[in-house]
């Protein structure tokens, strides 16, 4: 019985059906299934499959994004039950992410946030045109592990450097890992400004974040 529902959960994520994923999550609660088990054996299995198929070129970004949305919907349904049981999903890390001040490009940053959360990170997406102080305030508030700064414009790239400097000035540089991204951002730029990681694309950003959490 349980195997069937876990398979259905995985399938709902693979199909990107968030209503179905949410329904199955509610059913799991009704059936007394431990939410953590539902997540790990059901929804995460689906997400892992979608990730593998994406890497193989058999699935595409819309599959990935809809799968992540379904996963999110399921977890939202399970959270009250986890709280009631006094358990929490083990997150890989907490990430504060946003597009820097002066830049309103949304797509890349949102995709990274979506994939991070689907891969087990707790993500706080601050949106676009985010003042540097807001990044810092939020990171301190939620005790973030990683702060992700996106920029598509060369004119606003400089804000990534300023942010690293601001962390140093505030004496909190060692508390956070800084991940930078965006079309003009290169490995050498990341190194030059003293960022901890960088990625060319959204799936690479997930790998970079995982590495940072493993101390790599």
């Amino acid at each position, binding site marked *: 019985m349980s195997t069937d529902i876990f398979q259905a959960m995985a399938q709902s994520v693979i199909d990107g059906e968030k209503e179905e994923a949410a329904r199955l999550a509610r059913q799991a609660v009704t059936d007394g299934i431990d939410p953590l088990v539902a997540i790990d054996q059901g929804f995460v299995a689906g997400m892992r499959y979608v990730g593998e198929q994406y890497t193989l070129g058999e699935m595409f*970004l819309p599959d990935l994004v809809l799968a992540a949305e379904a996963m999110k919907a399921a977890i939202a349904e399970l959270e009250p039950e986890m709280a009631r049981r006094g358990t929490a999903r083990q997150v890989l890390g907490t990430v504060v992410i946003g597009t820097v001040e002066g830049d*309103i490009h949304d*797509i890349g940053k949102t995709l990274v946030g979506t994939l991070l959360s689907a891969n087990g990170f707790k993500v706080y997406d601050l949106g676009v045109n985010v003042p540097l102080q807001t990044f810092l305030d939020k990171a301190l508030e939620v005790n973030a592990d990683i702060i992700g700064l996106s920029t598509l414009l060369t*004119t606003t790239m400089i804000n990534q450097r300023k942010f690293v400097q601001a962390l140093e000035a505030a004496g909190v540089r060692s508390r956070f890992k800084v991940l930078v991204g965006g079309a*003009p951002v290169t490995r050498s730029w990341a190194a030059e400004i003293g960022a901890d990681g960088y990625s060319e*694309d959204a799936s690479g950003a997930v790998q970079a974040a995982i590495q940072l959490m493993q101390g790599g």
Partner: protein
Amino acid sequence: MSRPSFELISTEQVARILDEAFALLAHTGVRVSLPEARALLASGGAAVDENAEVVRLPEALIRAGLQSAPHSFTLYNLLGEARLTYGDDQVHFDPGSAAVNVLDADSGRQRPAQSADLLRIIQVAEGLPQFAAQSTAVVCADIPVPIGDLYRLYLVLLHSAKPVITGAFTAEGGQRMLRFLAGVCGGAQALRERPVAVFDVCPTPPLVYSAFAAQSLIDLARAGVPAEIVSMPLAGSAGPVTLLGSVVQHAAECLAGIALHQCAAPGAPIVWGGAPAIFDMRHGTTPMGAVETAMMDAAYAQVGRSLGLPTHTYLAASDAKLVDAQAGLESGISAVLAALAGVSMVSGAGMLDFLNCHSAEKLVVDAEAVRAALRLREGMHELTPTLGLEFFVGIDFRADFLKQKVTRQLFRAEQSLPSAVIDRGSVRAWEESGRLDTWARARLRVEELVAAYTPPDLPPAQAQELRERMAAEQKAVSA
């Protein structure tokens, strides 16, 4: 003689696109993040939700803008010479603009663009008649950001006798550039009468005009300097996944921009332009060389033409990382489509890697694609009273057409001559000249054009004026 043209969509589809765009603007509206712009539109009859910054535009307001927007305008150079007309069924090309990197010809790698790279691209484009205009082709990493937009414009003005397609980085930068242009063109009125530059203004997809974009439209309209709306729905991410759906969004963004621009100054010149792309669902990139990108461009250009407006698009660019076969085929195919679609100004030549990278070597290769595209658009000339009969008088079954005077007279009108970038010699000649491939020939051609470059014949006082004004702006910013 009929010009060959390419109409991708039907007249009915053009009408439906416009109907849906009008409906979108009337019901969903457009977000305009500048109070003055919202007030201007409100005074024209738009319904404004100040809290949400959303403006809903009645069709009559937009129609009034379309009525007052000019169908064509002429661009000049600093010497006051008329150089090209936007509209009037003309097709022109210019190098792509605002690349962050250049492809270093020696290392074959991308590196941040410097002002010396911009100068090189200007010099190469100056010697290529295929490019009717220059562009502020790269963002110069060695120039302080606050004056980066102005400095690029300054470099082009100083080194070229062609008009410029440019843009600002900020609203303040745009105002600084307009002041500068008025200063070096003999005053605001002279600039209005003989504009030397077109400014790109980019709405944010979907359906948003940032304070910067809205301010730019207002400032350009009031200065009478042509504005070019560069609407860029990304089909499947920042725009509907269907190509026609994204063309509807494009139309709505352009119509809203025109409404605001014409409210600010009726009759000011404006261009129905854009740089849409499909969204690559495997890589999350925005391929400029995709055929579907070119299809959206051709379709929206058809919509713009149906309104009688001058048009612009971003084609003749490639997503390849080198000047290779992919670069050639993507740029060549899209240059031909743009020319046949009758786009007034086609930007993008010289560009690689999703418009991130410029290459002077690619520019000279693309110039050959542009030459071919423009020749194709001329169509089949009728140069003689009979199409063929008269050539056969006295031929007597001999292949002696080379001896006919008419051959010498007319071959130049019929055949567009390629540069040495295109190899049409024998294999032996090719072997003997070192077995050069396109890239190697392009490098030689760039060197040749740079060596042959001659600066514009600016009166010394005007050149001095340019330098002094630039120095003053630099000083003002660093102070």
